[in-house]
């Protein structure tokens, strides 16, 4: 054998370079997102920032809002827990609770005593997404703030961060409070220890349908792309005086209220 040290080092160097190149190639090939064999549904409704305009003149009582909450909660298997640990995706509150930045005295009593339909605001700058340590909550390209429950570790940072109280935590097993014979079998439930909230019915938008509450509202809710001047939401914003919840916080909510 006539192996010189120089010879050995050359081979060692080449081998190492080859291994690095091979593994880098492998990583690139396996992560290739562009080649993913998945695409959006044909019926999917596309937007840059989905938004909702709620007419508080029409949805002004608990009786008007309850059917919308019922439709939403039945569709998404949201339990009704008779305690402070209840789960809510869509609920009603007083004007004062909904708009604490709106402190005018001596308002029209009719406006002052309206009930307001509340839900996740799908903020343009969502604080819940910023604080989530596992990226279980994220903002999609269409502006919807939604969750991957598989990743949620139940730390509840998002609940602390959300200034709108739009998030609920499953302190117990939600299935214990669901009517198991009346579940929507097209949609999952959640499990103990995860946070949940409104998703703007992303699973309905992807089959070309409007959100369940907008559909059940009989025209009191305009839903559409806020970046498209011709969308129903923008039309409603053009034609009516609207306010948003807690605008001073700078989260840029995508849910507007016609007063």
């Amino acid at each position, binding site marked *: 054998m006539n192996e010189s040290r120089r010879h050995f080092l050359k081979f060692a160097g080449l081998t190492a370079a080859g291994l690095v190149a091979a593994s880098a190639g492998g990583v690139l090939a396996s992560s290739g997102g562009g080649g993913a*064999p*998945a695409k*959006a*549904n044909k019926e999917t409704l596309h937007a840059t920032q989905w938004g909702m305009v709620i007419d508080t003149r029409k949805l002004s009582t608990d009786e008007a809002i309850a059917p919308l909450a019922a439709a939403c909660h039945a569709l998404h298997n949201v339990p009704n827990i008779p305690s402070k640990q209840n789960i809510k995706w869509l609920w009603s509150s007083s004007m004062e609770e909904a708009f604490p930045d709106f402190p005018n005295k001596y308002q029209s009593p009719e406006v002052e005593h309206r009930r307001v339909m509340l839900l996740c605001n799908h903020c343009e700058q969502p604080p819940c997404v910023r604080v989530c340590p596992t990226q279980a909550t994220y903002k999609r*390209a269409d502006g919807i703030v939604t969750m991957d429950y598989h990743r949620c570790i139940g730390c509840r940072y998002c609940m602390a961060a959300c200034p709108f109280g739009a998030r609920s935590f499953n302190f117990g097993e939600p299935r214990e409070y669901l009517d198991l014979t009346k579940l929507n*079998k*097209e949609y999952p439930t959640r499990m103990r220890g995860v946070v949940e909230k409104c998703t703007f019915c*992303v699973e309905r938008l*992807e089959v070309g349908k409007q959100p369940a509450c907008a559909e059940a509202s009989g025209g009191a809710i305009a839903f559409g792309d806020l970046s498209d001047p011709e969308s129903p939401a923008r039309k409603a914003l053009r034609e009516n005086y609207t306010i948003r919840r807690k605008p001073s916080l700078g989260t840029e909510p995508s849910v507007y209220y016609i007063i």
Partner: protein
Amino acid sequence: MKLYNGGSILTGLVIFLGLVTFPLWFNAGSKAYSQPEVKLPAKEKECIESKEFMRKEHMQLLNEWRDWALREGKRTFVNSKGKEYTISLQNTCMKCHDNKAEFCDKCHNDQAVSPYCWDCHIQPEGLKK
């Protein structure tokens, strides 16, 4: 050559070998391992990918399905033959494999794995209290 404490060492060795080989002689008389018989869908003969692929890769596929559907908004899967399927565990997989106990559980129990799919997803048999 003299073996010091030979008695204890040999006894110890015998006990040790006995314990180490316990699984071998304990199972010597029992039946050979047989693969679990899963119940395949009666109506549908073809899965979204080949049987071999699904056997080996269904967990990775489901992980990718989840991320495509939830994060990227892509809910149509194009398989290796170009056929399209809706990305959904409850509404695609379990529409054909309509019996979790006879399909999923058979192998998972056999292999002692307990995936947490059904903590949230609803099996086709429905839920019971």
